[in-house]
């Protein structure tokens, strides 16, 4: 039967409960909803955090029964990077888009102060991408490829003693952003008694440091019992292996040692089956829901408050984000306008300056021109005077020449032997 959550909300709305006198048919509604979701496909994103070589890739391969990636990382990474790979799996009619994000180089550096920061940044980036899509004006959320991390498998080294400082620090920074499921890796290196003590120590350390790991939900009666028991088995001690051996008459996944064979799917040997049950078969949907309803909402709230939005205005009257958004937009446009004005003013200023300079230059040129012209005029006048003088000189000279010749002619007339030639000359001359 459905829980009382719906009944309570409906009671609050003062709705009359009505009894039906026949079969209406809306009990097919969950099927309609599920069919639509199946058509769209599901997304599931797992983040694996652990030191290099602790068995993250092997465990994921074993969980999903495929060899995802063959690359083995070196220990000499300068900083922590995250590598994400997306795969499409299908089982009966369910299509799953699985994204595995691995931390490369975690715990390898000598100085591990910044190791957790890239992880936090990555998770925030996925939330941010979703938030941006949600805030868009034209958005398409129903076919958005959700990359938000739904679960974080944190691999703890099987030292048998306690949590490493790096582990504590990382988990504390991540517990409000993602669902953390701690697992003890390579559990076949610890004996059963040591394992019990180790688990108790780990849980008490987590509790005393206030780290909130993911608790399997116990509000649905059908799965609450099994979830509650599983909660008591955390952290799961897991062994991963893709190699198969023949045990009895079946092929099982196992690891072979000289002293025996560790079977991955044997519940006496390790908690692998429990992890698979809890992670995939029982709580996958709840993990997705918690990510969206709790972690993402928290991120969104913080981010929006950071950006300056508030739900209530200065007099505690509810201000819708809408209005704040509009106000900010106005502000932004105002800014833009102001900047535009500024630029325009600057432009006008510059133009004026340039104009002034050009005018100056023009004036100078003009002045020069005038000056040159004047000089030219003066030269001309001088030349004119000189010419006049010269002409006067020439006339004077010619006069004198004429006078002298006249005198010469008279001198010859007194001597008659001068031939008629001279007379002719004289005649010609006169």
């Amino acid at each position, binding site marked *: 039967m459905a829980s009382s959550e719906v009944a309570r909300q409906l009671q609050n709305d003062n*709705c009359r409960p009505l009894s039906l006198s026949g079969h209406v048919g809306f009990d097919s509604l969950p099927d309609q909803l599920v069919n639509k979701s199946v058509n769209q496909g599901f997304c599931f994103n797992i983040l694996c955090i652990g030191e290099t070589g602790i068995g993250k890739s092997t465990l994921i391969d074993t969980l999903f029964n495929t060899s995802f990636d063959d690359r083995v990382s070196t220990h000499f990474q300068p900083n922590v990077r995250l590598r994400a790979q997306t795969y499409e799996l299908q089982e009966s009619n369910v299509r799953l888009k699985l994204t595995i994000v691995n931390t490369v180089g975690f715990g390898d550096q000598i100085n591990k102060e910044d190791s957790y920061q890239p992880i936090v940044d990555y998770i925030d980036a996925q939330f941010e991408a979703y938030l941006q899509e949600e805030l868009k004006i034209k958005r398409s959320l129903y076919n958005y490829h959700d990359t938000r991390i739904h679960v974080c498998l944190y691999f703890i080294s099987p030292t048998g003693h306690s949590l490493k400082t790096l582990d504590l620090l990382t988990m504390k920074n991540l517990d409000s952003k993602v669902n953390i499921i701690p697992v003890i890796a390579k559990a076949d290196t610890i004996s059963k008694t040591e394992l019990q003590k180790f688990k108790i120590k780990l849980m008490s350390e987590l509790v005393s440091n206030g780290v909130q790991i993911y608790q399997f939900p116990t509000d*649905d009666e059908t799965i609450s019992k099994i979830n509650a028991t599983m909660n008591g088995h955390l952290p799961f001690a897991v062994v991963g292996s893709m190699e198969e051996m023949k045990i009895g008459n079946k092929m099982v996944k196992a690891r072979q040692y000289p002293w025996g064979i560790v079977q991955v799917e044997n519940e006496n040997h390790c908690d692998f089956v429990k992890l698979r049950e809890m992670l995939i078969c029982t709580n996958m*949907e709840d993990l997705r829901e918690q990510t969206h309803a709790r972690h993402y909402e928290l991120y969104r709230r913080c981010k929006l408050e950071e950006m300056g939005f508030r739900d209530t205005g200065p007099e505690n009257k509810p201000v819708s984000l809408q209005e704040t958004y509009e106000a900010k937009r106005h502000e932004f446009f105002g800014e833009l306008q102001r900047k535009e004005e500024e630029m325009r003013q600057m432009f006008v200023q510059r133009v004026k300056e340039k104009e002034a300079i050009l005018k100056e230059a023009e004036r100078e040129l003009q002045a020069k021109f005038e000056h040159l012209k004047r000089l030219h005029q003066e030269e001309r006048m001088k030349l004119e005077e000189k010419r006049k003088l010269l002409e006067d000189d020439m006339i004077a000279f010619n006069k004198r020449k004429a006078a002298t010749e006249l005198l010469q002619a008279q001198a010859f007339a007194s001597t008659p032997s001068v031939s008629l030639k001279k007379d002719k000359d004289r005649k010609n001359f006169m």
Partner: protein
Amino acid sequence: MFKGSADNKIEAAMSELVPEPRQKPAVPMKPVGINSNLLGYIGIDTIIEQMRKKTMKTGFDFNIMVVGQSGLGKSTLVNTLFKSQVSRKSSGWNREEKIPKTVEIKAIGHVIEEGGVKMKLTVIDTPGFGDQINNENCWEPIEKYINEQYEKFLKEEVNIARKKRIPDTRVHCCLYFISPTGHSLRPLDLEFMKHLSKVVNIIPVIAKADTMTLEEKTEFKQRVRKELEVNGIEFYPQKEFDEDLEDKTENDKIRQESMPFAVVGSDKEYQVNGKRILGRKTPWGVIEVENLNHCEFALLRDFVIRTHLQDLKEVTHNIHYETYRAKRLNDNGGLPPVTAETEENHESNL
């Protein structure tokens, strides 16, 4: 059996998002037999069960609006659809009551449960529509009401501290009742549907279909379909929102043959052939409501409730609401911002 293939190998501290187009096979996938070998089976398909359980726990909302002139049998039809006294029939205007000068909007909520599924059903009635002498713009109060519900949802969605489950009062489906004149659509019908088909899913129904013979019915339906097409009125299921071939063929059949559904409603039971069935008793026989030979009520009921209810809600949420939101955020809408006083103007009994 399942297959895995590396789709995207992205190497960066920040992973890049590649929105992938929705891949859908043209033929529905038949469930392949689950491999019961422990090594092969992972259990991914249990997510269907997990999801189903969660949705049953949260329950569903459904808001249906009925529009049409008084006396067309709206309340009776809704009662027949949901097999209970969902609406109180208005038995004509008493002399003491005044005829409403404008269209009123009355929303009544009920909780119904069937097979473990709890549904909050809200029926929105519009008394006074088309009843005045001058019916100009009588669709405006209705359009305003629908937009107000979108606005309410938008306000909640845009809050910083959001509710876990935003109460959904948006109108998912609007049944428009056409008078069975046998001729064609009235101008009021066309105007209403033209304006409202852009903001809400409209399902036209021919009311009181027992006044037409089979031939008259077929002809009338054809004429109505033609007129709707000529006027560019897209009723639900809209052609542009068909997601794939499977949907298209199914919806085409409904659009071109069955719609508008010619219905008869009744909440009285009569004994026919030893069975108690809903019907209308007349001197010339009993009209069986759920008999497909008599009327198309069963088709309407299956269409709205049993197959397309979720789709109605999704089209409202993904398309009509998004359109409203985009308009509103873009330039303050072209819509006047809803103020407190307009919310008091319409009567809502919840």
